[in-house]
């Protein structure tokens, strides 16, 4: 299996090289058969890398510790579900996942466009295979995922407990799908620039892949935030960490592109801007991957110092220089057909939306790379914290949410005063109402919090009004009932109304972010059983300590009773799991449980109005003498004896616990972040779903030749 896995990686590189050469030769010589070889090379790359993935996943599933990767990131006690995901918890495995997803998505894109964009596609194929070849080379030379461990250990290190969360199963594949999908429009943009085919046709062909990439990246970011809130013991969902920021940058430019694309399609405007956004999104996606792997910036998520930084930097340099050069060379052919007629128009709203998004991207990029900037400018590395990011991102986010209400409602070209009144009277009233309600409910909130409440209400009202007016008009013209009229309205204009649903989702998401960050109450306390604390209007009582042993870890925690005005609200059981260090010789058979990995299990009560979040940090220092004594007396305790002794410790903790440290948070509207995210995902899926007539045409296109052949044979 080892040989098969290694051979498949070498073959993958060979396939990529053959594909690049044949695509370029086919394009230059006008030989369609060579172009087809290039395209099929991408399918072959996907097939060969699938073999590598299967070999590795099979090794993880059967705990084959002769694979170094399996021994380092899995164990016999790792649950099967997480054995499957352990592959991408390592540098080597995640690189392989990246290039496998790239080859899969690129194969799909090339298959979907094989009958269109005949001039552009070979160059796009070469670019995509070039990226694939680059990543395969990295895995072969610098981070080989298939390395032999001889002799094989009897047990592996296991998967980091923090990653044992369902979100972590799909968070990396979603993020990487977003990154790799972002390279598809990038490759086609380079192809369009090389071949001078700069009309909107190629944009229309790859729009779905851009939207799918945006959706996957957004869902990946959301899953990461959700994991952080419900699994990590710090009580937040976003920390402005460089790696988190890096995933947000291509999402922001991708959002800008999806909006400005409409202006190019409708009015032939912003062509330089659009192609620059596509190129920037692709490059930022590679940069995001680079940041995690290079160790160039201090991040909790970054892989440690590695040798991958220089190759990545070289790749980024080539991509940036060639992209900028091509745009400059083709700037005359990218001139807009029309100019902006008025600042009161949908085009202007989209333009401002783009400026806000690119402004956000620039601010976040500046803050993220500030350690490098300051080192170049002053010779000293320095970094900025969350307050600095908030200072700029909050006003820009408020403007963005307001604009997401203006865009759908304002007229194209030039809005008249009547149009403006008709479009915005109701949303403005809703915004005013939200401001007053926010003021009354939230006590003394910040102006920015109230502004975000108003912006969200404005956007939801504007979009709701569009749905209502559209459905009512359809009801009047067809006589269908209002729900049917609404359904057919959406069904016939999926891209438009799917986009509006996304706007509602984003408005709800930002509403949740604003309320939860500005109005939350956080308390750090030390309590003994029987003591209680008040957080906002809730009383949280430490009822008793908990302690139990399962086959993987020792869990120590607390049972908390939450009440409000004397009424029971919830019972929460935060705990901390102690996983044993594999090194029993150094730490002792029992001591190793307190020297291995530990992970918090958050006690969480979610609700539409607020989340009650608790974590516990048991004081295990008081057990140190007892643990040392046991380890001295029973240095060779086997698994059964260890279980008995650990149960004694758990029992002792339950009966006589020392004061424990707690973090307790009551945070309003956190759930709205996840709900808003789900609404946005639903909207994007509506926009992505093919129209019935297009799906029918596709089915006919596939089945007609088969039918013809069958009839011919008959």
């Amino acid at each position, binding site marked *: 299996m080892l040989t098969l896995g290694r051979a498949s990686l070498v073959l993958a590189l060979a396939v990529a090289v053959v594909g690049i050469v044949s695509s370029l030769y086919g394009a230059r010589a006008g030989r369609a058969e060579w172009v087809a070889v290039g395209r099929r090379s991408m399918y072959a790359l996907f097939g060969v890398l699938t073999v590598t993935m299967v070999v590795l996943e099979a090794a993880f599933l059967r705990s084959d*510790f002769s694979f*170094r990767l399996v*021994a*380092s990131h899995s164990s016999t006690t790792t649950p099967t579900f997480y054995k499957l995901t352990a592959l991408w*918890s*390592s*540098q080597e495995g995640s690189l392989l996942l990246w290039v496998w997803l790239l080859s899969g998505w690129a194969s799909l894109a090339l298959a979907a466009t094989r009958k269109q964009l005949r001039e552009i596609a070979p160059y796009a194929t070469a670019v995509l295979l070039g990226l694939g070849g680059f990543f395969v080379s990295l895995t072969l030379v610098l981070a080989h995922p298939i390395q032999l*461990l001889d*002799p*094989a*250990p*009897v047990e*592996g*290190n296991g998967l*980091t*407990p*923090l990653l044992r969360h369902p979100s972590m199963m799909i968070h990396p594949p979603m993020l990487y799908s977003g990154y790799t999908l972002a390279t598809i429009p990038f490759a086609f943009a380079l192809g369009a620039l090389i071949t001078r085919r700069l009309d909107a046709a190629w944009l229309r062909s790859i729009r779905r892949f851009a939207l799918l990439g945006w959706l996957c990246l957004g869902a990946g970011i959301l899953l990461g935030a959700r994991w952080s809130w419900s699994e*990590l*013991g*710090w009580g937040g969902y976003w920390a402005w*960490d460089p790696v988190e920021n890096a995933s947000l940058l291509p999402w922001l430019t991708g959002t800008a592109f999806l909006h400005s694309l409409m202006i190019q399609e409708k009015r032939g405007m912003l062509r330089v801007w659009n192609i620059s956004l596509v190129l920037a999104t692709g490059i930022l996606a590679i940069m995001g991957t680079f940041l995690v792997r290079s160790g160039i910036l*201090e*991040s*909790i*998520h*970054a*892989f*440690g110092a590695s040798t991958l930084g220089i190759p990545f930097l070289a790749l980024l340099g080539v991509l940036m220089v060639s992209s900028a050069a091509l745009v400059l060379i083709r700037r005359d052919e990218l001139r807009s057909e029309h*100019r902006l007629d008025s600042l009161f128009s949908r085009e202007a709203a989209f333009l401002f939306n783009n*400026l806000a998004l690119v*402004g956000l991207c620039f*601010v976040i990029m*500046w*803050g993220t790379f*500030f*350690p490098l900037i*300051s080192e170049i*400018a*002053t010779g*000293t*590395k*320095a*970094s*900025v*914290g969350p*307050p*600095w990011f908030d*200072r*700029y991102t909050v006003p820009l986010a408020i403007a963005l949410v307001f604009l997401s209400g203006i865009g759908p409602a304002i007229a194209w070209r030039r809005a008249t005063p009547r149009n403006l009144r008709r479009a915005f009277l109701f949303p403005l009233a809703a915004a005013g109402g939200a401001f007053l309600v926010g003021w009354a409910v939230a006590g003394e909130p910040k102006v920015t919090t109230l502004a975000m409440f108003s912006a969200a209400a404005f956007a939801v009202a504007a979009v709701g009004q569009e749905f209502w007016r559209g459905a009512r008009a359809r009801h009047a013209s067809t006589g269908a009932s209002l729900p049917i009229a609404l359904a057919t309205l959406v069904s016939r204009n999926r891209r438009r109304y799917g986009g509006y649903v996304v706007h509602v989702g984003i408005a709800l998401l930002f509403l949740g972010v604003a309320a939860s960050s500005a109005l939350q109450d956080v308390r*750090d306390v*030390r309590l003994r059983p029987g003591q209680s604390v008040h957080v906002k209007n809730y009383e949280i009582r430490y009822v008793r300590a908990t302690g139990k042993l399962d086959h993987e870890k020792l869990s120590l925690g607390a049972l908390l009773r939450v009440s409000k005005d004397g009424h029971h609200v919830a019972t929460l059981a935060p705990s901390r799991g102690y996983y044993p260090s*594999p090194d029993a010789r150094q730490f002792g058979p029992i001591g190793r449980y307190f020297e291995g*990995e*530990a*992970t*918090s299990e958050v006690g969480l009560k979610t609700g539409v109005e607020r989340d009650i979040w608790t*974590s516990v940090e048991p*004081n295990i*220092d008081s057990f140190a003498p007892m643990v040392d004594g046991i380890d001295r007396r029973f240095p060779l305790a086997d698994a059964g004896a260890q279980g008995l002794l650990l149960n004694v410790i758990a029992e002792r903790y339950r009966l006589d616990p020392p004061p424990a440290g707690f*973090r307790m948070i009551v945070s309003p509207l956190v759930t709205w972040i996840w709900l808003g995210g789900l609404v946005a995902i639903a909207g994007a899926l509506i926009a992505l779903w093919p129209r019935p007539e297009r799906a029918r045409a596709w089915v006919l296109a596939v089945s007609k030749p088969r039918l013809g052949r069958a009839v011919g044979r008959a």
Partner: protein
Amino acid sequence: MDPRGKRTIRLVVALGAAVLLAVALIYTSFGAASEATTPAAVIGVPADGRSYQLTGKVVPGYSREGGVLHFRVRERAGRVSVPVRYQGVVPDPFRAGREVIVTVKREGNGFVAERDSLITKCPSKFSSEPAAS
């Protein structure tokens, strides 16, 4: 006003806004930044209220006193270490030998950390060696 004049005004306004944003970014980022440093570099700094982002590895033998965590941070590759007093959430992966980043200010003979500023590098990213058989 003719369309060309309007476009010029828009361009000037847009460029002016971009320049203003850029100046604000530069000014505030340099003003608000914490210097990233190592134990060896801060060992002799005075208690002048400046904050530093200290990076290094946790020395074995840290302790808790009430809600306060006392630990030492040493050079990644070296022996120089400085004491840190910290209050706030202790990340789950915090252990002796782990790489941490913490924002600190000099106070007396040691350093006092900013609340909740302690971060420990995600252990999934460590390429730990598998245990011997």
